[in-house]
């Protein structure tokens, strides 16, 4: 057998054909046909996520998808599925967020007909094997207790920020992994009921890309038609809390460095022109894992405070090892955030102050003309890199469909290109409120930090190495910069998501 690798198209994407079904008994389809790749991508995006978890059962949506996708079918055991799938080398990924459950699979075109039934039958006819379920449940509980609370303070900090931004009772309050005890109490009946009530044609978008045939497409449509069909109303979300001050949650943990995340609710969706103004602002303030942002330059490059400092205008998940956004995390409510990667504990107070000082300064004074022009050029070109593979292209196509906009990557170019500096600065002033930043810190000696924050105690930065006089001069201002903190809560790390 000879192998021929044909490279997929990238960037220059064909116009997506979106089929919306009037009667609603068949799933919505987003198609990106191409015969230039030999890979087929299929993406099943349920418009439901952990926001649908009952208040006392956080983790249920995730455990449901894990049990189904890592389990068997009515005809085949988990072991048989694994065995059949293996030689096809399909790349299968699950993305679980507050408002979406996504299954993304990439497979060689010639193997698609072998692979597809294995995917379909797990979803439509799950086996509900008790052992598969218990296995996934044990894994999930360990993920919360050890991976999240025990071993990854950066992830922990980001989840604590959302815990703070969305108070108990808000469907976004708990992480998608849930709470340990809640997960341990889940039963196979719970996940079965979640599957029956929340996964179905009524909230499913199917994306297909690559050299798929009309016959394959029709088969998929037919298979998913009428799957648990009923109209589906997403769990209602309360309006974001009106904030009038900064608030802090400190998680006490015996760790050498302090992990810091801060943010506030920000409801600007990609359908809103202001979104692109903020995207442009963010490109010069805190673009994820690049050196182009102000935070990165002021905190890491000039002061060597830590490894990185970034900001986001919506919930952000990195796409694998790249610094690009991963599609599949489109949310109904969004938030602005700043991620300060771990700093030495003695510099935690200074780092919090500096991030807020920098944001406040840019809100107050706006982006200078030169920076604005650079950011504009940057974002238009850079966004094209986000969709270099067919899998990412399809992800952004489906997300665009969910957001009700033209193809997101094109939309960034067309919207950002026409923005003026005045429009961007006005949007920044309209939406960004540094005085309301909610702050989550994972660190040791939390009471001491709480006291320093409460009393606005000066917080000199501790340098290991000399820096220039102009930096020291600015540091003087930052270390005395008054914060506007109204409440500080301290939690033991083992108690947070227990």
């Amino acid at each position, binding site marked *: 057998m000879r192998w021929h690798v044909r490279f997929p198209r990238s*960037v220059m994407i064909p116009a997506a054909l979106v089929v919306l079904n009037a009667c609603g008994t068949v799933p919505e389809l987003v198609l990106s046909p191409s015969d230039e790749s030999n890979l087929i991508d299929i993406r099943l995006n349920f418009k439901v996520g952990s926001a649908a978890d009952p208040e006392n059962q956080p983790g249920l949506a995730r455990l449901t998808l894990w049990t189904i996708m890592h389990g068997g079918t009515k005809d085949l055991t988990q072991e048989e599925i694994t065995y059949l799938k293996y030689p096809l080398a399909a790349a299968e990924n699950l993305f679980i967020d507050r408002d979406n459950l996504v299954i993304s699979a990439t497979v060689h075109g010639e193997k698609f007909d072998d692979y597809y039934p294995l995917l379909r039958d797990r979803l439509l006819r799950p086996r509900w094997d008790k052992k598969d379920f218990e296995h996934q449940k*044990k*894994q999930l509980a*360990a993920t919360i207790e050890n991976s999240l609370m025990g*071993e990854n303070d950066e992830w922990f900090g980001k989840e604590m920020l959302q815990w703070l931004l969305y108070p108990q009772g808000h469907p976004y309050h708990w992480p998608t992994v849930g709470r340990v005890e809640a997960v341990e109490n889940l039963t196979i009946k719970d996940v079965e009921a979640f599957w029956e009530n929340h996964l179905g044609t009524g909230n499913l978008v199917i994306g297909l890309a690559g050299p798929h045939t009309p016959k394959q497409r029709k088969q998929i449509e037919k298979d998913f038609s009428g799957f648990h069909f009923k109209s589906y109303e997403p769990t209602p979300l309360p309006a974001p809390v009106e904030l009038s001050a900064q608030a802090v949650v400190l998680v006490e943990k015996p760790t050498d460095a302090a992990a810091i995340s801060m943010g506030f609710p920000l409801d600007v969706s990609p359908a809103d022109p202001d979104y692109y103004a903020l995207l442009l602002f963010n490109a010069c303030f805190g673009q994820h894992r690049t050196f182009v942002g102000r935070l990165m330059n002021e905190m890491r490059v000039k002061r060597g405070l830590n490894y990185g400092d970034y900001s986001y205008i919506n919930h952000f998940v990195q796409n694998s090892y790249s610094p690009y956004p991963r599609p599949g995390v489109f949310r109904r409510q969004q938030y602005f955030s700043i991620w300060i990667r771990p700093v*030495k504990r003695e510099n935690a107070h200074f780092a919090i102050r500096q991030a807020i000082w920098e944001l406040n300064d840019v809100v107050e004074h706006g982006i200078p003309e030169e920076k604005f022009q650079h950011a504009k050029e940057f974002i238009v070109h850079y966004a*094209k890199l986000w969709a270099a593979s067919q899998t990412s292209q399809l992800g952004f196509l489906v997300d665009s469909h969910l957001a009700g906009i033209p193809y997101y990557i094109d939309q960034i170019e067309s919207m950002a290109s026409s923005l003026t500096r005045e429009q961007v600065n006005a949007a920044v002033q309209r939406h960004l409120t540094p005085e309301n930043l909610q702050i989550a810190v994972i660190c040791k000696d939390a009471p001491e930090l709480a006291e320093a924050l409460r009393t606005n105690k000066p917080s000199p930065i501790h340098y*290991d190495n000399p820096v220039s006089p102009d930096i020291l001069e600015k540091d003087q201002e930052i270390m005395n910069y008054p914060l506007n903190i109204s409440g500080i809560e301290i939690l033991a790390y083992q108690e947070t998501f227990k």
Partner: protein
Amino acid sequence: MHQNRLLPFITLFLAAGLIAQPSARPIQVPVEEYQLQNGLTVLLVPMPNTDVMTMQMTVRVGSRNEVEFGKTGFAHFFEHMMFRGSKHYSRERRDEMIQQYGADANAWTSDDLTNYFITATVSALEPLLAMEADRFINLTYTKEDFQTEAGAILGEYNTGRSNPVLTMSEALRAEAFQRHTYGHTVMGYYTDILAMPNQYEHSLEFFRRYYRPDNAILTIVGGIETAKALALVKKYYGPWKPGYDPKPVPQEFAQHESREVALTWSTQTNPQLWMAWKIPAYSNSNTIYQVLDVLKEAQFSQWGELYKRLVIDEQITRSLRVESDRSRDPGLFTVQATLYDETLIDSVRTVISTTLSQAGEHLTEEQLTRIKNHLYYAATMRLNDPSSVAYQLLSFAQLTGDYHSLQYYYDQLEALDLSTIRTIQQRIFQPARLTIVTLKQEVHQ
């Protein structure tokens, strides 16, 4: 202005699989390979229908070359210094250009290499190539920049500190390698990181020795016209002066019996068991890596014998992973088991060592064929965007200096039979190659 000195040394245009003997299953990547007169190897891969391109400069220096006492972590630190500006492109100018062209520019360091990449739309090829070349030829930074950057390294070290994996890696390497530089992680020892600000002079020496065209491979993949790209490479990288001058890397002492380290951890964690066997250096001429990759699939993939027993059936192991080094000097085949219950560490350890010592005998012809198919399909699936193609090429090219190693690997995999697998398995999974690291939760009185 130096173009007259830059005649292409080799010019090839071939699919990797079509050299020498035609391969049964060629990896169909159209590579053009050149060598500039200064020794720089250049790999160009045109991809149709994309206006994205990636340029990746692989310098064959990594933590393996940190032979001086107190200088661990230096190759990685030096990688950071390459972002502080050069003679014609200050740091500010560099950042401006990255913004202007919307590029993704970063780098990473491993045991054996330091890789600098810049990915952007293809219209930015010339300006970005000129900018990149300048830092390899005319790097400049102040002592103050150097010292400030040391803070960022400490920050990077801190990002991983809450995870016991970093501590376990440090312990495993230190125990397994008592002389060779694989005995420390790429990040380096904490004490050496703290002392980095004092190493300014050493950094100049490090650049002089290792950052030379005759120790580097430039890979450009994407929507490029190769003739034009080559002309630009000659123009901008031609003036880079050769003079690779490595310090010898000490060879590891022979190991005679198994070794063991026991660690504890103060915050919430699962117990861990790592078992690492020494394996030979990578070479085109033997099939050990293919055998280990096959056994990795047969034992640790989701249908694998050990995975099925420990993770699925008995559910006493939370996760079971393997890292099999492909390195320039002898490295490690490391099994990483995360358990739920620390009292089971010894029994899991016995199951793993017993099973691996018979892994080849347990493998059937049918399974071997399935594994070969899987590995081949998986490899070709990864060739789906410019960065992935570049990574596949350079990860083999850096090992041997020859990108054809990618094809040799798959040719030898295709030819592999059960008796070879059994012979190699018996050779590798011996107590005299083994180092064990365990980690348990600290007991609070």
